[in-house]
Structures are given as structure tokens and as C-alpha cells.
């Protein structure tokens, strides 16, 4: 029976080419119309620590939420087996290197002592020998896991012999061994895999050739021995074209569509890949025609990044930065200047695990309230957060529109999960995209200009170089932008800034700002934001299968919060049937909604281990919450 969904996991040491598996297989599956979602987990480390990619392929044609157990684990090394042995579904598959069989748990220097200790205890409890052999044996006997043991060494030797590569070079084909095995077990057709490989190795013909042959050979060998036990049913639908990209990539593309002309950044995980992408496109050339140019500046620190972004925004350039927690922390002083001065800047904020350096390569949603109140004093700001790749695409463009229309900073809150997850995103509807520049003036009458008329919160904004000249200051200012400490002026100017927020609240449709997914008569409600949307929607589907009819309230704009809509939806539910789902400890969205509406949440499903929320644990969590638990803490994932 063909599968409707396939979940698999591929693990190996950081720096050993692991990413290649996702970069090849994601487009390969997508090219056959499957929805793909692939998450990458890695340490704050360059080479040596354990890393893995967790993929879901869905015949629905949509990228669906990640879940455990997986039907297949592909292990590049012994550490992967020790780490993920328990993630394999009974009857699932383990692809591994026979050469690692003798490896003992205690030999794995790169494994954190915590995990090692836990495993030792667990193994001894279960009577498992703490070696690869022992684990594999246990899996086979107790879990009915099928073992696909390959001799990596033999394969490398063959490569050396056949292609004359060096031993070191041969090692680099490690990922293709797994790609081959997965291809074989899933019966993915050769053309599709070739497509994936070409995409990845396009420029390097010889490497491409070897890879193709290697993958085909291993696939064939595996197919011979195991058949195609993990074959997916043909795709049942979905778009005709996919964009296969990470969240970082998608946002970068969107910024380019949105007309970005200036981006400044200081390197930081998981944000800088976005800037690197934009820099690679600094000159937008299509068919030899130049469509625009983007200045991308790597600055000396984040203070400089945001400061220069504000400067660029004053010239009329669509201008933004991308950062994560520690970087944003350094930006808050300048953020206040932009807020004070009606400057349209965009900050793309990828949340990672805090506090402080925290878990710098893991995800979180713990910076919502910080974003909302960051910087001393009071000024309006817009905060958007996207639920999936496609939303992130539209929101990244909309962020510029909102910033210019309402003349205030826009923070686009994303997280490491989205940033690094590769998704098969439907081709965005670019015909529907509109660029709205508000009252930006590129040409204005020569002379000094009253930039801040008292009676116009949203005034015309001649940019630097427009002909008019203008003044800006961080001090309270008069209509011309000059320093003014007069109390009457203060009263007016302070309120003038906040009036923009009232206008934004009036003009931005509430049904853009939040969305209710599910039947009108749902009998429980999940409330969430950001990438929680992905597992939440899938969990609801599963729960529906179990007879539990729920809905998901997705909050996409955190400021201005669509409070009338939230209030009216929340008020139709019994508070005991309303569950907030967040990647943090204190329930930040819940706090925010309470603050604005008075609605007190009673049920929380929270996760703060830095790993994504998985569908299976969310399903369980919801059931627990509905049957009485007030706080359910999720923690699945290595």
C-alpha cells in the first residue's frame, strides 16, 4: 500500500555535507508534486556536532507539519543511530554504515554528556549493548525495524577506484549514499532525483555525474533487496509550480520583489543567510536589462546596521535589516529614533532561543513582548508575524507597504524554524502584489519643508534629495523638525504619533491581521502565532479524525492587535476550551491578548526546548489540555 505521507530523518556530523540531502531531495520530491517540509537541527558549531534533517513528504501536495515517529532514519554516523534510534517507527527503516557497527557509545566525543548519560541509563534498562550493533539488534528484534546496512568504506573504495578521486574526496559523497538509499526505498523516480542533483551540483559537472551514478547504483541495490516499501502514492494535488526554499530565502526574494534598495546587517544566526541572498542579487538583471540595484552593507555591529537603515530610509530607499535577538537588543535605541521620526524601516527579526546567547541555532517565540515594548519611551510600531513560508513571502512585502503607508517601523517577527526550514511553497501570486508607498515624495518643491504638520499625523514625506529640505531630530520637535520642549507642542506631537496607530488600526483589515481556521461550531480553540500555524493546522486535522472538532485562531499582526475580532471570537468559547500554543515559557501572546482584551487564558501548551512543535505531540497535548491539564509542556525532539 503506497503511503500518503513519508517522514524521514537524516543525521550526521555538522560539516559532513548533510544539508545536501535536503537540498537534493526536497526539489526531487517537489518535482513529482509532493509537498515537502524539511527542518534542520544543528548545534552552534561548525564541524563535528550532531546535526539532522527531518523531512515530511506529503502526497497532498502541501508542505505539512513535521511529526514523529519517522518511517526512515538515514544515519551518516554512529552518533545518529545513538541519538535517533527511538525516533523510528516500529517496522520502519534504518539506513546505516556497517563500518560503524562496532562503535561504542562512550566513544562519541561529540555527544553531549547529558544525552550520553541518559542513553547509558536507558540502554542498560532495556538491556541494550551500548554499541551500534547492540542498538541495531534491539531495533530489529524489538521494534521490527528493517536494517539497511551498507558498507560506506566499500562504497568509498569503489569511488576511488572507479573515478580516481582521492579518499578525502570520496568522503564527500557520504550524503549521496543516503540519497541513494532513500531513493531506492521510496521508489522516487530517477529523473526526479537527477533533477535534485542537478540543482545542487549544476556548476560542477563531474561531481554531478559521479553523484548521479552513485545514487542510481545504491538506489538500485536497495530496491533489489528491499523493494520499494516506502513508496508514496502519487501526488493528489497542489500547485503546478513550487518555490523550494528556506524561510530566509523566501523573505529575501520577497524583499527584492517588494523593492528593497538598502539592507544593512551584522552576521548572526539565523538571520544572515537572508542578507547573503540579497547581496547575491545586488544587481537585478533580467535578459541583460538592469531592473534595480540594492546596496547590501555588512556593518561593524547591529547599531550601525539599523542606524544606516534609517538613514537610507530617509532617502526614500526601501530599507531593512535582518537580525535575531542579540542583534535586535542592540538596535532598540535607534529603533526609537525611527519611531519618533515617522521613518519607514523594516526589521526582519528571526527569533532564536534566548535568553542571552541561549540556544543560538534553535528556534523560539520568546521575543514578542520585547519587540512590542523595545526602546525607551512610547511610539507606535507595527508587528507582523508569519505562519508559514507563503505568509512570510507576502508579509515581507507588506512590511514595506505598511511602513511607508503608516510611517513607522515595522518588525517582521519570524523564527529559526521558518528561517531554516525548506518548504515546497506554492508559487506566490505576484499579480496580486501591490506596492504602496503612502505619501512618499521623490519630487517636492524646492525649499524648507514642514515635515511634521500638527494636524496631519500622516503627512507628505519628501525624501532627502527630493528638492525640499527637511529636519529630523530625536528630541521632541516642532512642525519643522526642530527641537521643541514646549509643553503644548509636546502634547500635540506625542499624540500625533499615536494617531498614526489609530489610523493603522482602522485601515488594516482585521481579517488580514488574524484568521480563524476551522468550523464555526468548533468545540475548542487553539490560539497561536508564527510558525505554530503549521503543526496546529495539521494537529486539528488529526484530532478531527479522532472526533475532536477544533479551530485555530492565527494571529498574524501583533501590533496593532485585531482586538475587536479576537475578543469576539474568544468570547464565543468556554475559556476552558481555549488553548494558547506558543514557543515560550510565559505565554507571550496570551499575555498580550489579555492586556488588550482582559480575556484570561487558562490553558497553555508551551515548548521552549528550541525544537519545533511536532504534530504528534501537539495532538497529545491538546487532548491533555482538554481533559483537565492547564499547562502542557512539550519537549519532543533531539
Amino acid at each position, binding site marked *: 500500500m503506497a503511503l500518503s505521507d513519508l517522514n524521514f530523518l537524516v543525521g550526521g556530523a555538522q560539516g559532513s555535507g548533510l544539508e545536501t540531502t535536503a537540498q537534493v531531495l526536497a526539489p526531487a520530491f517537489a518535482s513529482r*508534486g509532493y509537498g515537502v517540509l524539511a527542518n534542520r537541527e544543528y548545534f552552534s558549531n561548525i564541524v563535528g556536532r550532531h546535526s539532522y534533517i527531518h523531512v515530511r513528504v506529503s502526497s497532498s501536495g502541501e508542505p505539512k507539519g513535521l511529526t514523529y515517529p519517522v518511517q526512515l532514519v538515514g544515519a551518516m554516523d554512529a552518533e545518529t543511530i545513538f541519538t535517533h534510534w527511538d525516533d523510528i517507527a516500529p517496522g520502519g527503516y534504518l539506513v546505516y554504515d556497517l563500518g560503524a557497527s562496532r562503535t561504542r557509545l562512550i566513544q562519541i566525543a561529540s555527544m553531549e554528556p547529558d544525552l550520553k548519560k541518559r542513553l547509558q541509563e536507558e540502554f542498560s534498562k532495556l538491556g541494550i549493548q551500548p554499541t551500534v550493533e547492540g542498538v541495531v539488534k534491539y531495533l530489529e528484534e524489538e521494534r521490527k525495524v528493517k536494517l539497511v546496512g551498507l558498507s560506506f568504506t566499500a562504497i568509498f573504495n569503489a569511488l576511488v577506484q572507479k573515478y580516481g578521486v582521492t579518499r578525502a574526496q570520496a568522503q564527500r559523497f557520504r550524503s549521496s549514499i543516503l540519497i541513494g538509499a532513500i531513493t531506492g526505498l521510496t521508489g522516487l523516480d530517477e529523473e526526479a532525483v537527477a*533533477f535534485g542533483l542537478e540543482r545542487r551540483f549544476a556548476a560542477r559537472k563531474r561531481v554531478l555525474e559521479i553523484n548521479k551514478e552513485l545514487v542510481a547504483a545504491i538506489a538500485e541495490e536497495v530496491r533489489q533487496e528491499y523493494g520499494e516499501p516506502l513508496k508514496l502514492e502519487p501526488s493528489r494535488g497542489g500547485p503546478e509550480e513550487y518555490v523550494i526554499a528556506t524561510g530566509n530565502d523566501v523573505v529575501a526574494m520577497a524583499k527584492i520583489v517588494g523593492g528593497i534598495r538598502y539592507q544593512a546587517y551584522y552576521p548572526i544566526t539565523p538571520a544572515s543567510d537572508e542578507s547573503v541572498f540579497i547581496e547575491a542579487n545586488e544587481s537585478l538583471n533580467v535578459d541583460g536589462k538592469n531592473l534595480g540595484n540594492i*546596496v547590501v*552593507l555588512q556593518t561593524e555591529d547591529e547599531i*550601525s546596521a539599523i542606524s544606516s537603515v534609517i538613514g537610507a530610509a530617509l532617502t526614500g530607499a526601501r530599507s531593512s535589516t535582518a537580525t535575531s535577538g542579540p542583534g535586535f537588543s542592540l538596535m532598540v535605541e535607534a529603533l526609537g529614533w525611527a519611531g519618533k521620526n515617522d521613518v519607514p524601516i523594516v526589521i526582519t527579526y528571526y527569533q532564536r532561543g534566548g535568553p542571552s546567547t541561549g540556544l543560538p541555532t534553535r528556534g523560539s517565540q520568546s521575543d514578542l513582548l520585547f519587540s512590542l515594548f523595545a526602546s525607551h519611551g512610547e511610539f507606535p510600531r507595527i508587528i507582523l508575524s508569519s505562519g508559514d513560508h507563503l505568509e512570510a513571502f507576502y508579509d515581507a512585502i507588506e512590511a514595506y507597504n505598511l511602513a511607508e503607508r503608516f510611517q513607522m517601523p515595522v518588525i517582521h517577527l519570524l523564527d529559526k524554524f521558518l528561517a531554516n526550514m525548506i518548504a515546497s511553497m506554492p508559487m506566490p501570486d505576484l499579480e496580486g502584489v501591490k506596492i504602496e508607498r503612502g505619501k512618499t515624495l521623490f519630487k517636492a518643491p524646492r525649499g524648507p519643508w514642514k515635515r511634521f504638520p500638527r494636524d496631519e499625523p500622516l503627512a507628505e514625506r519628501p525624501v*532627502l534629495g527630493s528638492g525640499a529640505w527637511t529636519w529630523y531630530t530625536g528630541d521632541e520637535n516642532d512642525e519643522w523638525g526642530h527641537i521643541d520642549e514646549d509643553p503644548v507642542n509636546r502634547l500635540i506631537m506625542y499624540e500625533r504619533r499615536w494617531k498614526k496607530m489609530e489610523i493603522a488600526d482602522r485601515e488594516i483589515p482585521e481579517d488580514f491581521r488574524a484568521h480563524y481556521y476551522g468550523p464555526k461550531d468548533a468545540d475548542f480553540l487553539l490560539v497561536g502565532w508564527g510558525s505554530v500555524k503549521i503543526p496546529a493546522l495539521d494537529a486539528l486535522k488529526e484530532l478531527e479524525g479522532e472526533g475532536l472538532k477544533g479551530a485555530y485562531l492565527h494571529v498574524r499582526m501583533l501590533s496593532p492587535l485585531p482586538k475587536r475580532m479576537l475578543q469576539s471570537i474568544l468570547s464565543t468559547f468556554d475559556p476552558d476550551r481555549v488553548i494558547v500554543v506558543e514557543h515560550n515559557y510565559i505565554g507571550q501572546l496570551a499575555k498580550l491578548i489579555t492586556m488588550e482584551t482582559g480575556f484570561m487564558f487558562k490553558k497553555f501548551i508551551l515548548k521552549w526546548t528550541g525544537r519545533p512543535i511536532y504534530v504528534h505531540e501537539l495532538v497529545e497535548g491538546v487532548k491533555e489540555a482538554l481533559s483537565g491539564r492547564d499547562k502542557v509542556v512539550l519537549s519532543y525532539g533531539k
Partner: protein
Amino acid sequence: MASRGVTYRTEVWSDWCPGCGDFGIVAAMTKAFQELGLDPANTVVVSGIGCSSKTPHFINMNGVHTIHGRGIAFATGIKLANPRLTVIVNGGDGDMLGIGVAHFVALGRRNIDMTVIIHDNQVYGLTKGQASPTLRRGEKTKSLPAPNIQDAVNPIALAIASGYTFVARGYSLWVDHLKELIKQAIQHKGAAVIDVLQPCVTYNDIYTAEFYKGRLYKLEDDPNWDPVVRDPSEEDEKIARALEKSKEWGNRIPVGVFYVNPLKDTYEDRIAQRNPYYNREAPPAFEEIAGEDGKPIIGPDEFKRLFAGYIVKAKRS
């Protein structure tokens, strides 16, 4: 556009202490602008925070009065997004060489074409006279409870070490001399800095006009003083001489141009070398990003071309 008829001073009252050296700096600036015929619409005076940083409000041109220490960082974005603009940054010694020193150094490394004017009064004026980074060790100005125990930064040496290609020192009471330095700095292509000795009449009772009188001398009065690098091979030697000169302090204090290197590419040049479409006359900020109808210039077709590597056609069987 020419400057005919432009009054370069606004009507905003300068609330500096009577006698403050900052007045001389604004006078020299406006004179220089007048003589250069700078277009107020295409000139931007940027500043940080401090007494000195109030400057933009007194000048009838675009003025961007930012936050403490970040003037150069703001100016960087302004200039790179619209290289057609003439950008001048004013700030205090605290602003530029203390809290903002990372940006000061970074500008030198980039050699962006802009002019930095340091109001060097050896104190934090606006916060009531604490020691600034240019106050020397052992000196005790009026507000200090005890003599300063931090060593001073040498702005000239730091600027040269950082890569500035025009480095000068002026004196705020020698308005005409300073005006000439400002003109040269603006006309110079690259990062230019002028360290302006600026008496703070309220808090600095050491470096007063009295003190400077008789001690200051002009570098250009020495006919052998040639700060300009005319050939790359001269660079090291000119730098060494300028550094040597920068140490002079006490009884004789040089003002004038310490170092000029017109041969080094500006950052804008460097961008243009990498991306020949980066056009100073049609700057990024002014490019069309959407059609009349609001549709982005990057439409569905352009999108597919630009990002072809990310697009996958789904072939369903």
C-alpha cells in the same frame, strides 16, 4: 543646482553658551557652503547628540540630528542609498571618539565620500563637563572632581590609522581658515575628517581661547609641508610624517591638513567596480520599484528568471 539666494542659516536660535566655539564652526560651515554653492536640497548635515550635534538645526539644509555616537552610521545609509547627496557629519569628541568610535573607525575603513567634523572641546558639554576621550590624563577641567585618569585618544592618529583619506585639524575661532579646510574636505573624494579645536567656555578652563592663542600654528606655513599622496609609493612616508606631526601638542599645536590621499577608491567606487549598474546619478533610492499601477517591477516573469534555481515545476503523474 546652484545656491543663488540661499541663506545658509536658519532662524532657529542657537542656544549655545555665549562665546562657545561651536558658533565659529557653524560660521565656517555656512561660509564654505556658500562659496561652494552647495545645494541645500542635495546636502545633508547629520549629527549625533551633544551641544555640537545641535548644529543641523542652525543650518538651512537637510538636517538629521540623530542619537549619541551614531551620526556616521546614519550618514552611511544616507550616502550609500543616495550617493548623489553631499553628506557632512557633525559631532562632539565624546560622540565620535567615545561611544561612536566603532563607526568612526569603520568609516575610515570604507572611505565613503563624506565629511566628518569633530567638535573637539575635550569635555562632554551637554552633560555638564565630564572628561571626553580627548582630555589628556592628569588634566582637571572645571567639573571634574579629580584629575582625569584615562589617557586621551589622538583623533588625527586614529583617523589616519583607520584609513581616512583626508585628515585635518582646524580651530573654531579661525573661521576663515576652518572654512577653507571644510571646503577642501567636501571637495575631497573619500572619507574626510576635520578635528576642530573648539573651546567650551563653560566647562573647559584648560583649553581656552587664551590657551590656544600663540600656541597654534598653521602647517601650510611651512613651505615643505606637503600632506598629499601623489603616488602610491609615497603613502607610507606621508602617513608616518602625519603621525609624527599629530603628536605635537603643548607649546606648539599644528592646524591644517595632516594627510590627503586622493588615490584610494571610495566605497562607492568599490561597489561600482563590483556592480557597474550602481549609478551615482541614478541612485538606488530613486529607482522605480513599481509601475504606475503599483505592480512591482519584478513581476511573475522577472521573478521566475531571477530565482529560477528555486523554482520547481510539479510533474504529477
